C-alpha cells in the first residue's frame, strides 16, 4: 500500500514529510547526536506552530535507533518544539497467525499487515491507494486519483476517479460506490470508461458479465442477495 503524496528531495541527513496525521522524520541515526539535533531544527523551525502536538515518527532507515537516542531526541523535540508523542515507525510485519497483535490503528495503512485495507479520508488527484485484497474507502475518490485492489473496491462516498479492482486477474471482483461517477473502471483486465447508469447520487456497482464491465443499481441488484449462506469474500 502506498500513497503517492510525497515530494522527493536530494538526500539531506534529516527529511520530514507529512504522513497521515503524523510527521515522519527519516534520519541518518549514525550521525553524532548534536548534528542530528541541529539538522532536526531546520524542518521544525519551518513548521513552527504546526509542529505543536504533532505525532512524530523517527525513522532511522536501515540503521538502528537505540532507546537512549530515541529518548534523547524525543525530549529535545518536546522541549524545543512542543511536539506530541515521539515514536519509532510501526513494526512492518506482525506475525499473521497472532490475531492479538493488531496494527497501530492510526498508522495501520502505512504497512499493510492484513490483506484488506480500510482507509478514511479523501484521495486527491495524483494520489494512489493500493490494497492487496479488498479496499474500503470511507470518503471520496477524487478525479485524477486511483484506487487499485486485488479484490473488491468499496467506496462509502463518491467515486469520481479511477478504480481498478480484481488486479491482475480476479474476474469476480466488483466496485461499489455510494455515488458512482467514475472516470474509469477496471476489473481484472477489462476497462470501461464514463459509464454510470444514472447520474450518480445512488449506490451502484460495476462487475464483469461475459467479459464486459456492467453497472447496476446496488440496492436493487445486489449480487450477493441470493447467496444461500454468508461466505467470506
Amino acid at each position, binding site marked *: 500500500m502506498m500513497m503517492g503524496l510525497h515530494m522527493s528531495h536530494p538526500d539531506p541527513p534529516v527529511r520530514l514529510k507529512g504522513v497521515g496525521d503524523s510527521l515522519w522524520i527519516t534520519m541518518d541515526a549514525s550521525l553524532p547526536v548534536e548534528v542530528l539535533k541541529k539538522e532536526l531544527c531546520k524542518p521544525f523551525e519551518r513548521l513552527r506552530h*504546526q509542529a505543536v502536538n504533532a505525532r512524530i515518527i523517527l525513522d532511522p532507515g536501515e540503521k538502528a535507533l537505540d532507546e537512549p537516542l530515541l529518548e534523547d531526541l524525543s525530549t529535545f523535540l518536546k522541549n524545543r518544539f512542543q511536539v506530541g508523542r515521539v515514536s519509532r515507525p510501526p513494526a512492518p510485519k506482525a506475525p499473521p497467525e497472532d490475531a492479538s497483535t493488531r496494527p497501530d490503528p492510526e498508522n495501520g495503512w502505512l504497512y499493510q499487515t492484513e490483506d484488506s485495507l480500510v482507509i478514511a479520508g479523501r484521495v*486527491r488527484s495524483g494520489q494512489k491507494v493500493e490494497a492487496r485484497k479488498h479496499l474500503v474507502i470511507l470518503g471520496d475518490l477524487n478525479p485524477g486519483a486511483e484506487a487499485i485492489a486485488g479484490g473488491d473496491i468499496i467506496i462509502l462516498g463518491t467515486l469520481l476517479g479511477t478504480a481498478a479492482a480484481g488486479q491482475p486477474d480476479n474476474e469476480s471482483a466488483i466496485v461499489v460506490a455510494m455515488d458512482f461517477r467514475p472516470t474509469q473502471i477496471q476489473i481484472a483486465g477489462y476497462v470501461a470508461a464514463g459509464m454510470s447508469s444514472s447520474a450518480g447520487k445512488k449506490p451502484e456497482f460495476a462487475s464483469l458479465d461475459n467479459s464486459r464491465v456492467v453497472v447496476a443499481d446496488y440496492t436493487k441488484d445486489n449480487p450477493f442477495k441470493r447467496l444461500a449462506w454468508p461466505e467470506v469474500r
Partner: protein
Amino acid sequence: MDGKIIVVTSGKGGVGKTTVTASVGAALAKQGKRVAVLDMDIGLRNLDVVMGLENRIVFNVVDVIQGRCKLRQAALKDRRIDNLYLIPASQSDEKSVIKPQNMTWLCNKLRREYDFALLDCPAGIEQGFKNAIEAADEAIVVCTPEVSSVRDADRVIGLLYARSITPRLIVNRIVPQLVEKGDMLSHADVVDVLSIDLLGLVEMDDAVVVSSNTGNPLVQQKESRAGMAFNRIAMRLDGHPDLPVEDPMAGRSFWQKVGKKLGRKNRTAKR
C-alpha cells in the same frame, strides 16, 4: 514582527494567482498591515505590470537571494497604497537559480519586516512551485469553475497537505449567469470536490482587466464586485475569519454563510 508567509498557488496557469496576489496584498495594506507581494514566477514576471510598477525595477528577488542587494532595496513601494511593497521577479534567470534553502532564509527575513508576505507562485508543480511553498506558513489555492482547474487545484492541495501547509480556497472567475444556466460548475460543486476551507468567491469582472492595464488598484473601486470580494478575503485573512462568504448566485444584497456550511475542514493532515 512575526509576519505570515502566504503562498498563492493553483497548479493550472492563468486562473488568477497574480490577480489574487496583487489585490489581496493591496487590500491587506489598506487595512493597515505592512505587506510585501513577491513575484516568484522567475523568468516570466508580471506582478510588476499588474501593479503598474514595471518602470521602477532596479533589483529583484534573485538579487536579494544572491546578496547583490538588501531586501529593502528590492522592495518597491506601491504608488497608491501605503505599506504595500512589491519584490519583483527576475526576468532573465531560470527558476533553478533559487534553491529551497534560499527560500527559508528569505522568508525568515520577510517575517521580520512585514505582517504579511504573499508569494505569487508560478503555474505547475515543479521547481518554481516547490520553492514558493518551501517556507510558507499558509496557502491560498486559486481555482476557476472548470474541471481541469479543479483537478490541478486538488493535486496541489494534496502536495500542500503533505508539507503540513493548510490550504484555503478562492474560486475565481465565476459567471453567475452561466452557473444559473448549468453551463458552468457552481462553486458548491468545486468546494465539494476540494473540501477545504473557503476563503472567498470572486466573479468574472471586467474591472480586473481594466485595473491591470491602468494600474488603478481593483480594491479601491467600490463598484467592482471582484474588488469588494478581494477586500472581504483580506478581512478573513486578517482578524475576521468568520466574515460570511457572499454567494454570487444569491440575490445581490443577500449574504449567505457558506463558509461554515461548505468549507468542510479536511483534518487528515496535522497542522
